[in-house]
């Protein structure tokens, strides 16, 4: 029997986790659906004409994903703060790796799929409802004589290419999507580091990191650079007076640096948090 990972044991653990938490999870998904319904209902009541625009749907998706995903991740190892629950968790005859992988499976994959399915179910319903309400009152609303009714579409929350005229080249949603898994990993790690008030403490820790980032730019980078501004991330710096992107830039780090930073956020951050979580779990004592 492999002491680090065994597929049949992992399967048993997945089954046990579902069996122990089924009720809680189904209730949580119901709560997410209810909150989305309430929010869209509120938007439709206060301003039917502008509600359910694609941008609004995308913002709703990501705000909901970040809040509920972070909250859920911050509760992942909350059992370890409670002695009886911690003993119950640590004493199950499965490897630490399997226990972390089960958490990743439920919090990263299953949560994400369930949230997205619920979002689209509610979104689809509310877009249809909004179209029906707007169509019913179309004649009473102010519009140009030749203007025809345009129904709202269900938004694609995963792709929104920003075009520079030659075709889509940058997708801000890909970054948001990527960042989500990193943030979620941070909250999962926070749930082990901070036994009590994990969500609040992790949020404070992340805000402090963001503050540190701003301070480094303001107090370290700006003083050593001439007066100017960053453009296109932190890889190009334009001194004041040179606004033409084609002109020679005073400070420009190699393109690969930007790619490495983006790659770090995209591919390294979330796995790194989970690896640290694994080692923290191994060290956990009750």
């Amino acid at each position, binding site marked *: *029997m492999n*002491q680090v990972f*065994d597929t049949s*044991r992992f399967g*048993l653990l997945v*089954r*046990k986790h579902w*069996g*122990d*938490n*089924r*009720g809680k999870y189904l209730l949580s998904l119901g709560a997410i659906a209810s909150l989305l319904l309430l929010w869209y209902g509120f938007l439709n009541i206060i301003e039917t004409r502008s509600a359910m625009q694609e941008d609004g749907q995308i913002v709703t998706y990501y705000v909901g994903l970040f809040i509920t995903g972070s909250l859920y991740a911050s509760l992942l190892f909350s059992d370890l703060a*409670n*002695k*009886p*629950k*911690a*003993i*119950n968790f*640590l*004493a*199950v*005859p*499965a*490897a*630490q790796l399997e226990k972390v992988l089960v958490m990743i499976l439920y919090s990263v994959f299953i949560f994400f799929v369930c949230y997205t399915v619920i979002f689209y179910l509610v979104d689809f319903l509310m877009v249809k409802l909004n179209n029906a309400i707007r169509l019913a009152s179309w004649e009473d609303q102010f519009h140009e004589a030749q203007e025809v009714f345009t129904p709202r579409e269900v938004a694609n929350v995963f792709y929104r290419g920003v075009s520079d005229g030659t075709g889509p080249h940058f997708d801000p949603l890909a970054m948001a999507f990527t960042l989500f898994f990193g943030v979620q990993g941070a909250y999962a790690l926070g749930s082990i580091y901070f036994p009590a008030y994990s969500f609040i403490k992790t949020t404070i820790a992340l805000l402090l990191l963001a503050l540190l980032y701003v301070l480094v730019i303001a107090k370290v980078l700006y003083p050593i650079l001439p007066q100017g501004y960053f453009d296109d991330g932190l890889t190009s710096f334009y001194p004041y007076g040179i606004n033409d992107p084609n002109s020679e830039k005073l400070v420009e780090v190699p393109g690969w640096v930007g790619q490495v930073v983006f790659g770090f956020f995209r591919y390294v951050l979330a796995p790194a948090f989970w690896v640290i979580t694994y080692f923290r779990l*191994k060290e956990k*004592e*009750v």
Partner: protein
Amino acid sequence: MVNIQQLHFGYRKKKVFTGLSLQLQPGHIYGLLGKNGTGKSTLLRNIAGLLFPDQGSIDVMGFTPGKRQPAFLQEVFMVPEEFYLPNIPLQAMVSNLSPFYPRFNQQQFDTYIREFEIPVENKLESMSYGQKKKVLISFGLACNTSVLLMDEPTNGLDIMSKSQFRKVMAGAIDENKCVIISTHQVKDLENLIDRITIIDEGDILFDQTIDAISRKLSFRISFDQEEVKRALYSESSLRGNAIITSNTDGEESKIDLELLYKAIVTNRQPIHSAFNS
């Protein structure tokens, strides 16, 4: 089976063990006695791999508990004093958890549940603390792990349940199992344990088998003041003086665990001298 060598362990402000060594063999029910806060639970949690020694070593069947390997965890079951059971039906809990223990026996579990008179159709959340504890004890026994650790198992059990507990435990031990029961309610373990280990302030004050105690010590009520004066330990009671003396005539008396415990904790020297003579 369990070999503890020079165990040093402490919490931030308090040292609990400073060089504790202990060997536990299969086929016995060990009674770990001691006052509250003397390190009984800490010792059990070190054996279970829930706490890690600062120094020294713990070996359980060739495993280092702190590594918490699955092969180790499926050989050790712990019934903690404060425990958690998920809010699901009893049978669901059993079907979720039992596959992790290769020697789990459903028939045995059903028998224990019947003996403990647990309403099987109930959800765990609707059961009382005592009923939940009996479920956990039944489950732990039915897992047939080589090492069974029980921390204050009789806490929260009513008088009938305590007697059921003793009955169930007596039938559950075999030559391959090592059961360690920690308690400060020594009366609850009478006629159950076959070896007594008393710890205090992280030290082992006394560690003897029941057979050895029966051979070496005599427990009785005495009205003879001379005999009371000569006793290794005495305590006045409504019935007379409860005394412990050296067993010189070879007749075995019923061991009064509580009296022995008090004798060891208050002044262990006379008792030890009886064993060394």
